[in-house]
């Protein structure tokens, strides 16, 4: 998975080894007065899933250990963690998550909430379309609060999300299931 929300870029590559666990690589780049990059080997868990007749809800968490690089040249150990909850039917979607990237020099937190609707109920082999509104907050950044309208498409193993912050910064996210 690759994604960018204007001032934060995200790259994630995971291998699931059960329906509830995955491990992989997670990198985040924060573009500010001083850029920082965090990279870690991360493990994710699906803590709880509710499978309802017409809906699904999930709670996930993950932690990772790695390194952080600052623009000035400082390098040190770092950790990444996240917590996420989501709820989805075929027409309605809601999610919230918190991510933390921390090193002895600097730490960043990202909080975001998303709500979306699907204009039609797509069948399994059709293109799914979602209109999503995201509100996000990144600590210790110049632009700490962003509102992001976006459109999400997925079909088969491919997932694409495109949008723009209200300040005009493009937002893109791409995922593929191997």
């Amino acid at each position, binding site marked *: 998975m690759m994604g960018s929300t204007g001032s934060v870029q995200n790259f994630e590559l995971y291998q699931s080894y059960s*329906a509830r666990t995955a491990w992989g690589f997670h990198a985040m780049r924060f573009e500010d007065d001083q850029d920082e990059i965090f990279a870690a080997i991360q493990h994710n868990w699906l803590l709880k899933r509710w*499978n309802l007749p017409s809906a699904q809800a999930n709670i996930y968490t993950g932690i990772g250990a790695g390194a952080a690089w600052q623009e000035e040249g400082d390098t040190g150990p770092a950790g990444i963690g996240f917590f996420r909850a989501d709820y*989805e039917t075929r027409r309605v979607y809601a999610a919230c998550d918190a991510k933390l990237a921390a090193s002895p020099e600097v730490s960043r937190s990202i909080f975001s909430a998303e709500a979306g609707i699907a204009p039609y109920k797509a069948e399994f082999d059709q293109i799914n379309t979602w209109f999503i509104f995201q509100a996000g907050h990144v600590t210790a950044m110049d632009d700490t609060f962003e509102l992001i309208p976006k459109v999400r498409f997925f079909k088969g193993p491919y997932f694409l999300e495109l949008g723009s912050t209200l300040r005009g910064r493009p937002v893109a996210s791409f995922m593929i299931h191997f």
Partner: protein
Amino acid sequence: MKLPSTITILFLTAGLAQAAPDRAVAIRTTVNGMVCSFCAQGILAYFKKHPAVSNVHVDLTRKSVLLEERKGHSISDKEIIEYIKKAGFDPVKVERLKTSFQETKTGS
């Protein structure tokens, strides 16, 4: 007088016995939590690779996974249930249908 009827019955029975294996069995599993095609990709990928399955169809509207058994092979209800659970969903019931895979996919 009895001989002709006996012969007729034998032919009829032989005809039925021959017809049965030609009709592939469709298996429909009702699944809870299957609301997103991106998330249900694992179910499709697994059953497509299964040697006893010749056809798979995921139906989000009917909340079901439809399988067609390959001739001469079989997949047990237990295996279907276990795999759907392993993929992260809740199977509700497995039904072995009298209609064919195509008929069930398009009609029921």
